[in-house]
């Protein structure tokens, strides 16, 4: 029994480290899941005289998509968001994070604009409230204003099919 102990310890450690290899340190789980979405009231990108207030969004589930025209991964993700928003009539709110409004507008003209509203987070304060540490990041917020899911990095069709649509009761 004792003879096999060192090999058993070694195997246990090897398994532990092997599992560790598969974890992505870039994916930090959000403490905000199942908590109310932090309030924001920000200017609308396409019409700065208007405000985007997330209290007004209660009653329908929506995606809050954090993006910037300076972010290459957002460009990769964008066609997927455009496609799923159109196909399933999803409400997608943009959070334009520390971006130049003029460049952001050009970006939307070039790549499409799936957003029902776009809040301008010029100083990054709202992004900090949401625990954003990179772009793109997307939150799924339910009709009661509770954050139900967060995706760090570009949304894929798979994420929509498996995570987003089931949570809002849409049959894909």
């Amino acid at each position, binding site marked *: 029994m004792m003879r096999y102990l060192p090999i058993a310890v070694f195997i246990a450690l090897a398994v532990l480290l092997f599992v560790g290899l598969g974890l992505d340190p870039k994916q930090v789980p959000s403490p905000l899941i199942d908590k109310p979405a932090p309030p924001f009231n920000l200017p609308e990108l396409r019409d700065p005289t208007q405000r985007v207030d997330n209290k007004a969004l209660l009653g329908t589930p929506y995606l809050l998509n954090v993006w910037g025209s300076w972010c290459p991964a957002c460009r990769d993700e964008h066609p997927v968001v455009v496609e799923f928003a159109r196909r399933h009539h999803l409400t997608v709110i943009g959070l334009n994070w520390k971006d130049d409004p003029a460049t952001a507008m050009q970006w939307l003209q070039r790549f499409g604009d799936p957003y029902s509203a776009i809040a301008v987070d010029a100083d*990054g304060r709202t992004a900090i409230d949401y*625990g954003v540490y*990179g772009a793109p990041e997307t939150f799924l917020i339910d009709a009661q204003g509770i954050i139900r899911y967060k995706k760090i990095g570009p949304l894929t069709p798979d994420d929509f099919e498996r995570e987003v649509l089931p949570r809002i009761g849409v049959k894909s």
Partner: protein
Amino acid sequence: MIRTCLLWCLLCFSAAAFALDPMPFKDRDEELRFQDITRELRCLVCQNQNIADSNADLARDLRLEVFEMMREGKSDDEIKTFMTERYGDFVLYRPPMKPSTWLLWFGPFLVLLAGGFLLIRHIRGRQRARAEATSTAATPSTGPDDPNEMIP
């Protein structure tokens, strides 16, 4: 994404080359307190750095946030709570003591204890074997297949 991270991390390594944005501190005490707090907080962009050293854009925003909270008279704990509510315990370089982190805090000591226990058992076992060996060697051999039989 990966390229941006690599670029950041390369930039982070050259941190010594340029000073970070200075804050308008009232006095030396405030500056020291600011450094203490920001050193305890991990930068999520460059994960092996704290926000005191990191040149990531987000780290700069968070430094400003810490500075403003200090000016509002918030305590160190309040500032750390603000950060963990948004980014999780991962932002703290010193993880909090709670059931889910007990293993993290006490695991190494448990391993040390277990190792010590096994070592003592092993030494005692050898002593016993040696004692048995000397006692059996002193008595005439019990049979031809006794492993402890002395060669005359």
